[in-house]
């Protein structure tokens, strides 16, 4: 006997302390050169993406993991930051063909983009696995297709209980996850109103988590609807207050997708020069998200909000 007490090991929980920061502070603190970055699609964290691009000289290279992205990932790919993309889908959606993505994969402009492909469910299962603390999950997707043929990380095995084939996907452990959600308190309890895709498991999979939100609310307000809390505080490192922080995309129950802007941006993205001109005007020449919103126009943003509220508002059936 040495009569020394057992060392008190601690879990990974982030403390319930004040986590409110600016986008600039959050990106500076957590995103570094060669960060492996996870990104949500629902909703798209535009305010955080814009800030990452503003800091691209420092960050230089990112490897990214997504399930699907509809438009916003191209802002990062076009900026020359992205070296590798693990994905199920990357396209413009209703905005159409993603020329930024095509240029990067087909021509290596502005830099070559390596791909690692999954199906959507396969990609989501990777974060689900990490969130459970295990290194893989089996799914019944991608079997018989060419997806595993060009992605050796997907293993087809016989299920030991049924002897039927299953596809194993490896857990994904992002260094940092960025996402945009509805509201949070200052210690990082995050609530999503409306559908939220895979943001819950993405937050659970990443080492560090930055969440931009439409509203900062009190802890008492969070406690009123605790089952809206999709991400409890212990996963979260930084809360960034970014009203309209998903523009040109939608933020459920807050404002509608600005399709007129998105289509126009995509028209400009048809050439790398056009993309650079857009980037210079809307991202690099604006100091922060508020400056971007002023450039787009708060009148316009408020009209997108009123339009959304005409059809749906939290707590009401309209």
């Amino acid at each position: 006997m040495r009569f020394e007490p057992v060392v008190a090991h601690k879990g990974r929980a982030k403390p319930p302390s004040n986590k409110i920061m600016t986008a600039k502070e959050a990106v500076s603190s957590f995103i570094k050169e060669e960060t492996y970055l996870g990104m949500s699609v629902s909703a798209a964290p535009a305010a955080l993406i814009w800030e990452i691009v503003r800091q691209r000289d420092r960050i230089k290279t990112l490897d990214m993991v997504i399930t699907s992205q509809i438009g916003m990932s191209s802002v990062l790919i076009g900026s020359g930051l992205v070296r590798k993309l693990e994905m199920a889908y990357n396209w413009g959606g209703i905005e159409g063909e993603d020329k930024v993505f095509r240029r990067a994969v087909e021509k290596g402009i502005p830099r070559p983009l390596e791909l690692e492909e999954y199906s959507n469910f396969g990609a989501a299962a990777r974060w689900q696995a990490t969130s459970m603390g295990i290194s893989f999950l089996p799914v019944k997707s991608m079997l018989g297709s060419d997806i595993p043929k060009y992605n050796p990380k997907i293993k087809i095995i016989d299920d030991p209980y049924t002897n039927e084939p299953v596809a194993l996907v490896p857990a994904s452990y992002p260094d940092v996850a960025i996402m945009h959600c509805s509201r949070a308190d200052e210690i990082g309890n995050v609530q999503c109103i409306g559908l939220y895709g895979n943001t819950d498991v993405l937050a659970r999979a990443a080492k560090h988590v930055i969440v931009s939100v439409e509203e900062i609310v009190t802890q008492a307000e969070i406690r009123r609807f605790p089952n809206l809390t999709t991400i409890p505080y212990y996963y979260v490192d930084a809360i960034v207050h970014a009203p309209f922080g998903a523009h040109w995309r939608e933020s459920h129950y807050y404002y509608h997708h600005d399709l007129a802007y998105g289509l126009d941006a995509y028209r400009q993205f048809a050439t790398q020069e056009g993309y650079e001109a857009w980037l210079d005007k809307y991202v690099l020449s604006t100091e922060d998200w508020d400056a971007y919103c002023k450039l787009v126009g708060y009148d316009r943003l408020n009209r997108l909000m009123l339009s959304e509220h005409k059809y749906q508002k939290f707590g009401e059936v309209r």
Partner: protein
Amino acid sequence: MSNYADKYSLPELMAATVAREIQDGELAFIGVGMPLMAATVAKFTNAPNFNMMVEYGAVGPSPRRLPMCVNCAVNNERAYYVGTQREVMSAQQAGFVDVACISGAQIDKFGNLNSSVIGDDYFHPKVRLAGSGGANDLASSAGRTIIMMRQDGRNFVEKLDYLTSPGYLAGPGARKKAGLPGSGPVAVVTTMGVYRFDIESREMYLEKIHPGVDLEKVKAAVKWDLAVSPNLTETEPPTEEQVMIMRTLDPLAVYLGNGRDTLSGDFETFMKMFEDSYQPMLDLIKSKGLV
């Protein structure tokens, strides 16, 4: 009973055709775009008790405006459930989804689809496309799938450049052997006609041809020796009501035509689109007793 529309576009014909494939009471996995048009028509006509699932986590929405994507705010509108993508994907993998609608850039005779790359070198593609997204998951696990795609003369191929979403793979029995839960495609609705799959060989054959389309042109647009049904008929045109429903939801032809060109950079027209369709959509929902 049916009053057929005198004038309709090809996308309207395709959407009406897909709508007729959806049965009342079914649970369907619906992608935004043309499948959504078909779903809306079905809901307001032949299948009022069918519900749609939308990929990023919505079940049973009944929107009064045009959804823009699978994670659009519109998909929450008057829904039964909203939450995660994994809810709808898991339900599908566990066998709860009756029918799903998917698309692709290339197809082969067993209904396998490519939406990933064009060209024979995956690592140096001639054209890079979007990738699977949920298409592979739907093709793998939905009870049955309906394929909706453009037929451009080159994309009905002998061999795909990349197999993104499984149809019947190499033929009879191949899906089961690969471990796929769903039963595979039942129809391919294109810009030229409607195809089905033979129950024995699982090979695609032409069942219907769109009005005004020449059979020889269809054969020329298919790179394998296409089987044609001995009972080949013309595709049933959309009814006046079906066309009216589609144009009420999509007055600027964002999905049904070239509305996207009109809207690019034009915020006022975009806002007006919502204003203009709000009351007609409300009236439509009320007239169908779906409030």
